[in-house]
């Protein structure tokens, strides 16, 4: 099987299932989940944009599936947690069988985004970076006391971990 083949749209999995399958195949079980490593294992080229060498890049990320090899772009001038979420988000477009997406702006990662594809990709990113099983296990230990520590444990933003916990019904 060609590792770079995009999953067919006729059997598009849910974000949760797609993320679980990707983690099962390409994650070593250690936190934090590395979306770049997963992308590399899938044969996806990950390209850093922005920064001093590319100051005109005004986007957060982009998924290009038009060439022979899928490409994910992310903005390296943004915060690391945002970079990780962007790559995971673009991986979501790949895993969910979306066509090449418009270039993602920071608004694409908002929970209020109207586009279904963007919303599903966001959910996929949360499922990928914050696996439910590990989150529940960590909560059961009672050793991490606040959202900031959980965010550090998964190397995500506090907003992302909060939404994930709410989505799982772990916090009101």
């Amino acid at each position, binding site marked *: 099987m060609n590792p770079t083949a995009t999953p067919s749209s006729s059997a598009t999995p849910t974000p949760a299932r797609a993320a679980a399958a990707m983690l099962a195949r390409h994650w070593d079980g250690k936190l934090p989940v590395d979306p770049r490593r997963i992308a*590399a294992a899938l044969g996806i080229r990950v390209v850093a944009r922005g920064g001093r060498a590319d100051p005109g890049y005004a986007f957060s990320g982009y998924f290009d599936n038009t060439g022979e090899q899928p490409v994910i772009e992310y903005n390296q001038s943004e915060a690391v947690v945002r970079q990780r979420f962007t790559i995971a988000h673009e991986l979501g477009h790949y895993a969910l069988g979306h066509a090449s997406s418009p270039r993602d702006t920071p608004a694409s990662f908002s929970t209020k985004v109207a586009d279904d594809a963007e919303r599903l990709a966001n959910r996929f990113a949360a499922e990928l970076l914050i696996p439910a099983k590990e989150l529940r296990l*960590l909560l*059961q230990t009672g050793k991490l006391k606040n959202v900031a520590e959980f965010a*550090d*444990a998964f*190397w995500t933003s506090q907003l992302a971990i909060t939404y994930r916990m709410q989505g799982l019904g772990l916090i009101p």
Partner: protein
Amino acid sequence: MTSDLNDISDDLSPPVTTTIANDLISEQATRRLFRTLALAAALLTLLVLLGTMAFIVHTFLSEFRVLALDAPVQLAAAPHGAAPPAAASSTPAAAAAAPHFWVSLGAFTTSIAALVTALVVAATVLAIALVRASFTMTARGDEPAPSAVDTLEDAPVTLPAADFVKAFGESVQTALKGLQAPVR
């Protein structure tokens, strides 16, 4: 201008909390595994005990049922309590002795049921204890363990049950004093 994956610098290492989280997750997963094993072992123990008890009770009752079927003649032949020896071979006398036997069998069955109930309760308590034991897998590092010297110093100097005997003696003396007191 773009740079590929090999150009991305990895100088930003993940927070230390991720390492702690990995250790915590590993410990918690192990704890859950042992808890599951303990639950399975407790359930298995309970099932084996229940199966054994059911077999024993069934065997006892089957044997006594056979005895009960043969009982009228055997009981009549035996020197049994109020039954007069002259009437031992007569059928009406055997019929009269049978109710007494059934009363005894009923009491025995009740005793067996009580015993089985007690054993089931004991087995359940054992199973709960096994499960509970699997929860205490963490050591309290903030409390120093009692040293052997302290334990010896705190140990009671009296013999086992000496306090009980002493208290019992005092109770008897108090009762005797009460009996010897003049009636008002």
